[in-house]
């Protein structure tokens, strides 16, 4: 029925099957929108956040998805600026993922603030001292960039391309892709960094506070590095997942391995710098604030184990991804990418939730926080929307340019993802 819209040279499942796939995600989206609607209409008392836990699930997941969505800018940077040609195979997919990650984060932020109608105040009365101003500006601009980068993907659709204006427009736009990639990289550098800076400047929270390099705390740079390291891993992971779910070969294995290697190299740099930073923080910054490092890990359930887990989740994938023999095996490759993504989630969790759980005053109590169903539902809406948009993009737009060639080639090495013909 919608064959005309599906790109030439690739096969997609029947419309009925597609709708069946979409149905549960649409239902989840509906539930999530209802949860978000409750929070907007009744107020943030629908969540389990409170005056001590001013940030909760939403901010933690926002930070995580923005780090994971960094694959969009970083892949663009690698492809268009550093000319890593093999990444052309995944750039479109990366842009869609990035768009959903950033769009979802912005949507959740709109629900997270107490006065969404005043969202424009940050642009109208910006505070040059505040990291959050920088985050708001850069993310808004970058979302615009991503939308602009998404437009050609849409316009290249088989039917839409038949409209001459669209064809010309996307062709002209493509000439500027280097500009957008550069702008995107610049903006991402700053917003990934300032997301880290959000916590690193908190003088009142010694658990998060870090020394300054220039005008930025070290978390500024560590966040950029971790995002750049994990972005490719997430692209790798999602590509593999899409291959598995659709049963098609979408990219050559070398592309995934290349992504893995880039991830591994950056993870190595990150682990080194993070270890250095942690040592300085524990031995110098913390005592200077009047706190003792042991106090950070004295409260159950956040013992020293959480620090160990965080480091392990970066160290282990780093080792695997830098070992060519292991990298070549899909199982190791994908699980180490997944571990790296979990590592970044733990890192953001520690800085968001653990920071707020820990006492600052000597008579504070340690607090616990569990999100309410409305909070969880709102975030599930983002997940559902992402899956829906990605599924539609995958079906109707050419997200993986290599798919057509791979379809013609016979299936090769046994370690690659199995091709189930004719789905």
């Amino acid at each position, binding site marked *: 029925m919608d064959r005309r819209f599906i790109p030439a040279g690739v096969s997609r499942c029947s419309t009925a099957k597609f709708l069946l796939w979409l149905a549960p995600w649409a239902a989840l989206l509906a539930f999530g929108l209802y949860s978000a609607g409750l929070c907007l209409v009744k107020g943030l008392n629908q969540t389990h956040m409170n005056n001590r836990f001013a940030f909760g699930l939403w901010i933690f997941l926002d930070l995580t998805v923005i780090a994971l969505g960094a694959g969009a800018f970083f892949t663009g940077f690698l492809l268009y600026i550093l000319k890593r040609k093999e990444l052309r195979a995944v750039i479109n997919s990366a842009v869609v993922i990035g768009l959903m990650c950033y769009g979802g984060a912005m949507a959740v932020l709109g629900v997270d603030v107490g*006065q969404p*109608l*005043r969202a*424009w*105040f940050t642009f*109208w009365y910006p505070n040059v001292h505040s990291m959050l101003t920088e985050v708001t500006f850069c993310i808004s601009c970058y979302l615009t960039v991503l939308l602009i980068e998404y437009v050609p993907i849409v316009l290249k659709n088989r039917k839409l391309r038949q409209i001459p204006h669209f064809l010309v427009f996307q062709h002209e736009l493509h000439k500027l892709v280097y500009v957008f990639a550069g702008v995107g990289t610049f903006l991402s550098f700053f917003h990934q960094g300032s997301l880290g800076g959000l916590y690193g400047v908190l003088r009142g929270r010694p658990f998060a506070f870090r020394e300054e390099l220039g005008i930025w705390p070290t978390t500024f740079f560590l966040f950029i590095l971790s995002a750049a390291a994990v972005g490719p891993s997430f692209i790798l992971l999602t590509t593999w997942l899409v291959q598995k779910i659709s049963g098609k070969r979408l990219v050559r294995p070398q592309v995934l391995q290349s992504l893995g290697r880039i991830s591994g190299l950056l993870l190595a740099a990150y682990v080194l710098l993070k270890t250095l930073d942690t040592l300085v923080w524990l031995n110098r910054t913390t005592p200077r604030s009047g706190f003792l490092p042991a106090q950070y890990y004295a409260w159950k359930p956040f013992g020293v184990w959480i620090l160990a887990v965080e480091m392990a989740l970066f160290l282990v994938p780093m080792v695997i991804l830098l070992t060519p023999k292991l990298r070549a095996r899909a199982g190791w490759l994908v699980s180490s990418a997944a571990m790296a993504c979990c590592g970044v989630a733990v890192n953001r969790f520690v800085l968001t939730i653990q920071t707020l759980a820990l006492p600052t005053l000597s008579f504070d109590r340690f607090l616990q926080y569990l999100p309410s169903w409305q909070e969880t539902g709102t975030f599930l809406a983002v997940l559902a929307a992402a899956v829906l948009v990605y599924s539609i993009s995958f079906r109707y737009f050419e997200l993986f340019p290599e798919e057509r060639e791979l379809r013609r080639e016979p299936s090769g090495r046994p370690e690659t993802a199995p091709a189930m013909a004719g789905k």
Partner: protein
Amino acid sequence: MRNTRRNVLKFIGGAAAGAVLTPVPWRLITDTALLSENWPGVPRPLRGEVSARYTNCSVCNAGCAVRARCVGGQPVSLAGVKGHPLSRGGLCAVGVAAHQLPYCAGRLTQGPVEAAAGVIARAAANCNAATAGTPGAVCNPTESIAVLDLRPGRTASWTYRRAMGAVRNGLYLTAAGPFSGAAVDLSKTHTVLSLGAPVLDGWGTPGNVLATRANFRLIQAEAIESRTASLADLWLRIQPGSASALAMGIAAALKKGSVADGAAATGLTERQITDLAADLTQHGPALVLPGYDCPGAWALNQLTGGWGEAVVARREAPVPEQWKNCAPVTGLESVPDGSIRTLIIDESAPGDYVPWGAIRRKLVADNPVVIAFAWSPDGYRRHALLTVPTAVYPETLEDIPAAIDSPAPVFRLAAPLIAAPAGVVNPPEFVAKAVGIDATNALRERADAIRKAGRGVLITYADGRTRPVAQVTPEDFWKALNEGACWMDTESRRTAPPAMDLPVLDAQPFEHTRMSFAVLAETATAAAAPVSPLMTKLDRESNLRLGRSRAALHPETARSCGTADGRRAMLETALGKCPIEVVVDASVPPGVVQVAASPEVIDICGASARARVAPL
């Protein structure tokens, strides 16, 4: 220009681009913020002339001097008056927000006024006319009509006495105990032993207690870590319910007898009790203050050297002579059981809450008539047949009896700052009128009697002056009282109160049983229940107070009762049950339920009781 689609589109595009260069869209953007600043239901504070008015707070007997900041005549905030000799500018948390009392949820404004007037009038007439066996008599010859005055010592109390004096078998009842008519002088004492009295938590006149605090060493003997216990110079943690036993032990020590029983019952060592007794005699004059569950311990002051010094008799402010032909003051406990047919309870002025069981016992078994005068739905309205709504501070014009720590007689009025709603009554005038007595000018008559006696001084708040009463005309005296002033008798001689018998007590050692021991907490604020809606700041929005309908348990006790922090549960005693919310607090002794006092709780617990906490 031709009317083509292209031209139209060009026009629109150009207009949009041009509009961006005008202030219009930028102004419209800022206007979106207005939507977020004016929300439905935004309250509009009053506008008007700002003025100060003075009154006295009638929420409790402290009667602290109050300066009200009024906007257009409506009080918007209250503060103490510095320089007042007793309250010294102090105003407690309840008093500071008391101007909001009229707006409490559930505040009574409607009730069966006509019916109540009819019932009282009929009951009085029947009592007067009753002879043995008269058919249809509402009141048998042996049955009485009574007024239970929960805040004795007011002019209203005299009105009730006059009213009941005009009725055959009319009784005027109080539950004040044997110590009414006496007061303590904190400035004359060097050691205070409080047997659970909340000395630093709403007892007496807070401003006075704090001003004299440096004079005396405070020893708090209490089972739970109350606010007073945590701030005292010495806290003796005794077994729950053993305050009377401690009093007996001290009495025994002072008489050089054996303190073994007292030690066993309280959990203290014999040495501690003898040292305590020695403390009281050597660092005197000493004062022993009973708590909620041991009123008889006042008598102990006769043995500690404070009788007549730290504990003195206090006369009432002068009263018109013609009033003195009235019903005597009768204690509720001394009334024979089952002898009251019609009971009128005046709950309009906050006072101690008497457990309903103690009152019910005195009523006839079949169809007693209970009429409650109240402004709050939480008290005796739950038990009364008819509840008549009354005004509440600061709507009322009433006088405030002297506080326990005011050795000099005082007279001060709570002046009405706002108008009472239509439909509420003035209880003493209402009762008096129903039995045929006109008491509408009672306060004026009282003021005139005080002025006529010529003793004492008038302290006015607006100008901070203190003048001998003899220099003030009766008109000015009445006017000053209505504008916030205080009369104080500075000339009375100090005398000792009448002698009291030491209560005989059967000291039982505390036993841990499967039942927990319910201990009442925050008894001072229970008397002033309910309170301004803002009091949630203290108990719900912070952890400063326990708060009504809550009980604190030690973690082990909570676990053994099958409940946890924040859960709802049922507090059960032999007298009944009431729902509570559980709070887990490691500072509560195991086996104890620390429950915030409130009418429902006092009904089932009395002063203290064995209780069970069952999860709901």
